[in-house]
């Protein structure tokens, strides 16, 4: 099987092994082109941002129109948003995942739930922002607040948590369920005492990945909870808040004369935070794979 190959005016016959070698190198090159920017971005930001990071930068309020001082309110705001998102999305997401894996019958309704989850996962983040504005900020009159933003982010995070919960529950062998029932337990007792503990690492991975996305998102909080500048920390869930991703947008596009070190420093804080979560999730996953005995 030789492939004719035009080279200049001469027709060259390429041996299939030559084609393979060329092809493999092409694919390797493509992969390299994909991976290099990733490495480049991470290394570049750490290299540029590290010098701005010090204790004061992380724990001080900004001053002088945010051109000096630290980024404490943005860090705290992002933390609050993460906690708020967890409070709502984790219990609901796990419950929905349990339903789909353990209770749901094979019906059209269940298929519709799956389609809804896939659709929710694909809704653009800015549309979540519009939805949060319409429902939480205006209709429920929560105002531009941590509460509105957290609820908006929760719904965005939900599909990730539901589907990873469902997937990790489904990976538990059927015999585990039979054992629970044969010992005289109810279905729920079996789930809570036997199935859930086994599936916990997988669920945890899903939660971390979902929250990681929520923490890094800007568009859903633009009109639901983020504020340009707040000279103090938020006092209650009804306060608007600064948040790291929105703060990066603000200082890189909206504030003229922003010192470049502060910009890189802020980006680095967010990136390290998000990638740290990513790392924890991968560690949990690989540990579980190594320990699994069935």
């Amino acid at each position, binding site marked *: 099987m030789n492939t004719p190959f035009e080279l200049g005016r001469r027709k060259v016959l390429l041996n299939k092994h030559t084609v393979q070698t060329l092809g493999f190198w092409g694919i390797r090159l493509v992969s390299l082109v*994909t*991976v290099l920017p990733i490495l480049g971005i991470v290394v570049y930001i750490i290299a540029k941002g590290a010098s701005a990071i010090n204790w004061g930068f992380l724990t001080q309020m900004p001053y002088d129109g945010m051109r000096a001082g630290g980024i404490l309110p943005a860090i705290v705001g992002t933390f609050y948003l993460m906690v708020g998102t967890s409070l709502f999305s984790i219990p609901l997401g796990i419950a929905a995942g349990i339903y789909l894996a353990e209770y749901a019958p094979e019906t059209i309704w269940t298929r519709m739930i799956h389609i809804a989850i896939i659709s929710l996962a694909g809704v653009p983040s800015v*549309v979540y*922002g519009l939805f949060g504005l319409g429902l939480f900020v205006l209709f429920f009159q929560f105002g531009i607040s941590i509460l509105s933003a957290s609820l908006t982010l929760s719904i965005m995070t939900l599909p990730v948590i539901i589907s990873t919960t469902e997937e990790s529950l489904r990976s538990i062998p059927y015999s585990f369920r039979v054992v629970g029932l044969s010992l005289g337990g109810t279905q729920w007792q079996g789930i809570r005492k036997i199935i859930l503990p086994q599936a916990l690492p997988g669920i945890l991975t899903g939660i971390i990945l979902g929250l990681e996305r929520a923490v890094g998102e*800007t568009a859903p909080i633009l009109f639901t909870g983020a504020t340009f500048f707040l000279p103090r920390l938020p006092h209650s869930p009804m306060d608007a808040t600064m948040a790291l*991703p929105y703060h990066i947008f603000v200082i890189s*596009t909206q504030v003229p004369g922003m010192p470049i070190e502060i910009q890189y420093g802020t980006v680095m804080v967010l990136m390290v935070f998000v990638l740290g979560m990513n790392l924890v999730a991968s560690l949990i996953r690989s540990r579980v794979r190594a320990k699994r005995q069935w």
Partner: protein
Amino acid sequence: MRNSSEKWITRSIQIAGSSSILFLLLIFLFLLREGLSTLGEVPISKLLAVRWYPIEGLFGILPLISGSLIVTIFSILIALPLGVGTAIYIGEIAPRSVKEILKPMVEVLAGIPSVVLGFIGILVLSPFLRRALDLPTGLTALSGAVLLALISIPTIVSIAEDALYAVPNTYRDASYALGASHWQTIWGVVIPAARSGILTAVMLGIGRSLGETMAVMMVTGNAPTIFSGLSSFIAPVRTMTATIASEMGEVATGSTHYHVLFFIGIILFIFSLVINISSSSAIRKRGEKKGQVVS
């Protein structure tokens, strides 16, 4: 006692199970509630016009749709070969050790917030493209497309790799037994067998690009222009998402401008719905994975 609490828990789990349908409906409902009155306030002919200039009451959304399409198509042209190529490398060629490094790295890219990519876009990519192509500004559709490619690559890689993985090994063995090389097997057997999954990967990548907001808003220059040939790729554009994100903060609630922004949201929502539902049924037909939510 045990029975009544069991019943209660089962009931709440069932309700939670259906919550995603409720939320999807709520999203649609509230978009319609705030956006549908556009049709009463702005005549269709004015809406489907080529000038977006809200201060003067010009709400032509064609340049925004055109902007979104330009950036998305261009980004997919970049992301398709890179993403599918990387998936082929990870799934079919790379030795185990390389695979163990590559996969987490692609996941890292999925984890980088889009605002961080936008930031890099402003400070590194745009100045570079401006100098390299000798443009008046680096904030162009091209810059946006490059960032969008980075954003959709993780989705494409992970779903395309799943699709390759789902091809049974017997196919490969049969091909080798016929004397085909590894490379011929990949091109002639594995990729054709996985094509519906790869198509899904690309569709979902398009979905990601179309819906992406921050990175695009930061680097595309935000000029609402209509497509006018190849030069549009290296000129500033404005996407639907960027328009909503940059203007919603400044409009009065209940104004026409406000309603039109929600109307654009409805268009985006329907686009994403069509892309996701059609690609998920494509997966289902092949009896492969149920759906891919985590990229």
